[in-house]
């Protein structure tokens, strides 16, 4: 574990776990009234010149009293700060404070090394943990996507692109990304599925240069289905199907109820189908409810798992619980989920299905997404934070 590291990557998950544990501990102290001294070592304030190996060694030495395992509980926060807890009076905390102050005289000790008392200052501790997790980092209102200035394709241009897709080699346009399990106690994320999908922006640019597909959702969906059916046709060969393994295929409803997918479904056999997760856009369910109902019955019969992809939480709130039975959900984390007052947060939480094991949080690009998920019992993630380097 790196002590001085402002980077958030795989070993950042240990820091996340520490942060969650520290938050839980602060709450416990309030509940039980147990007193603790807390030293917050804000290594994130240490200037870059001291991050060189020689200085790093000095910082390490100053921290030595904390690193002896029996002396204090030590937590590493995302961003590199350390938090040490000790029963009062906690002389070794003072020792560290003195050592580091000598090393960094230019930063006032109260700034670099604040001391907190639990349970009295639990709220302050929770605030700093939330800040380290990025949970207080309320983003500015997301800007609407800037129009590309390009014209949408005409119907006949899209017809031509769909004909082109039928014989295109998609190899260069396929993207793979992992879906991982990462629970608060895990040292490493465990791979669950590998998502496989055609990357549409590049494919659309190749087949319809100078046209903007995003302006017309119905045409974009048509194109998406054409690309997916081409990918499925390539997968629906015995050799390819055998290689598929634990796969997540995000597919439109119109692609799933078509020959290419059904051929793959037959080739996979019961054991292959059990390893398959299909993610269908929630909007497709609304556009064709009868087709979606058929797909659900088919999934129950054939043994693959079905998830609603990217449902708006407000849509989930409108759906009766029995209508969601047996479905998984792939939610997209948006920094805006951290914003809003207590009421907005509670309303968002109420929209999540009760069985959190059926939720996958996609778009986990920062540790705040993992923390947000863990706070809600979500342990399946997809995104840069969990993706190995």
């Amino acid at each position, binding site marked *: 574990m790196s002590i001085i590291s402002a980077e958030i990557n795989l070993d950042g998950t240990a820091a996340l776990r520490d942060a969650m544990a520290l938050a839980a501990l602060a709450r416990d102290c309030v509940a039980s009234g147990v007193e603790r001294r807390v030293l917050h070592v804000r290594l994130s304030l240490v200037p870059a010149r001291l991050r060189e190996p020689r200085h790093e060694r000095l910082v390490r030495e100053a921290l030595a009293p904390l690193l002896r395992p029996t002396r204090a509980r030590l937590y590493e926060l995302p961003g590199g700060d350390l938090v040490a807890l000790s029963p009062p009076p906690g002389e070794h905390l003072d020792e560290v404070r003195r050592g580091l102050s000598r090393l960094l005289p230019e930063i006032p000790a109260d700034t670099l090394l604040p001391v907190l008392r639990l349970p009295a200052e639990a709220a302050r501790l929770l605030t700093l943990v939330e800040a380290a997790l990025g949970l207080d980092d309320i983003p500015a209102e997301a800007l609407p996507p800037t129009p590309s200035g390009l014209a949408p394709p005409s*119907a006949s241009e899209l017809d031509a692109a769909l004909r082109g897709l039928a014989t295109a080699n998609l190899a260069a346009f396929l993207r793979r990304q992992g879906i991982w399990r990462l629970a608060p106690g895990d040292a490493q994320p465990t791979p669950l599925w590998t998502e496989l999908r055609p990357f549409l922006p590049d494919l659309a640019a190749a087949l319809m240069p100078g046209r903007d597909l995003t302006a017309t959702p119905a045409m974009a*969906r048509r194109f998406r289905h054409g690309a997916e059916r081409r990918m499925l046709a390539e997968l629906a060969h015995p050799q390819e199907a055998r290689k598929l393994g634990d796969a997540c295929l995000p597919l439109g*409803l119109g692609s799933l109820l078509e*020959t290419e997918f*059904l051929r793959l479904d037959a080739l996979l056999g019961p054991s292959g189908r059990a390893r398959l997760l299909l993610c269908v856009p929630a*909007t497709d369910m609304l*556009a064709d409810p009868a087709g979606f*109902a058929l797909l659900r019955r088919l999934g129950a019969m054939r043994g693959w798992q079905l998830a609603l992809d990217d449902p*708006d939480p407000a849509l989930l709130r409108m759906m009766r619980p029995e209508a969601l039975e047996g479905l998984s959900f792939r939610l997209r984390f948006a920094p805006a989920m951290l914003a809003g007052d207590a009421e907005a947060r509670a309303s968002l939480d109420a929209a999540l299905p009760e069985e959190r094991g059926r939720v996958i949080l996609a778009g986990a690009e920062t540790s705040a997404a993992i923390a947000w998920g863990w706070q809600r019992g979500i342990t399946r993630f997809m995104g840069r934070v969990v993706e190995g380097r």
Partner: protein
Amino acid sequence: MKPDWRASLAAMPPGGIAVFRPAQGQRGAGRVGRALLEEAAILGGGQVFAFPGGDLLLGAVPGPGQRAAQAIGELTGLAPLAWSLPEGQAELATRAEAANLAPPPRAWSLAALEAHCAQAPLREVARLTLFRAGHGGAPLAQRLGPAALDLDDPELEAMAREWLCRRVLAALTHPVERAELPALRPGLRLILDFPLAGPQATPGGAMRAGAPNDPNGPIALLPLAVLGVPSGFARMAGSLRQSGWAVGLLASDITTLEALDVPDVTWAAPITARPPAVLPPRLILLGRPNPDPPEWRCAPGILHEVET
């Protein structure tokens, strides 16, 4: 060269099975049905013939074919026909012959569909239907909207509806084209179809229908897909109500009503033999089943279609 189905049928050993699934309903159900028949053909030894009017499985042993037929019935609600061979041979041959000669469904390109929606005469693509409540009496409401094209592909049908909705709305506010639309009846509540973009898609922007927030005002019928962006739907519903409209949601399948709980909307959905498990307070039933219109259509809060 595909093997001839007659030759294959003649060569069937006794004890075999024939399963025929007529082409009806949506394309997805047909694709699933064919896939299950093809699987049965592999498992039990046999062949599948895809006719324009339906799919035929000739299977050497009955087990896989029977299981496929049962599975198709459970999945799609329409059980295929099954015959033991050689007993059912004559009846099967008649069905297969007719299915083989049935006209194939038209394969629309997007360009052709767009052109059709833009050029077909308004009186063909706009449709006026009348509704009443309960057992008797005069019609209470009229719906003006695009005629369904009955395409087997729900995506294309939705695209056609969008194009046609915009055309009908544009004609409504056009001094000359308006005369080509079916004449609205005075005194009946209006149910008007809107595209996904709602009233913004109309040439003059929002159309004022009456005093704000009148639950008995004319109904703006929006496709169910508007719920894909709930915040956008909330905004649209708010501005419609401000302009005097009541908000309606058009579902292509009545079982959707059991899944969704949307406050303050009137639902519209195709009529079915049995009511959905959850009956919304306000419902418009589309279509007139003949000869057996279900009795539940006359329940309180329901408008059902009557002859024009």
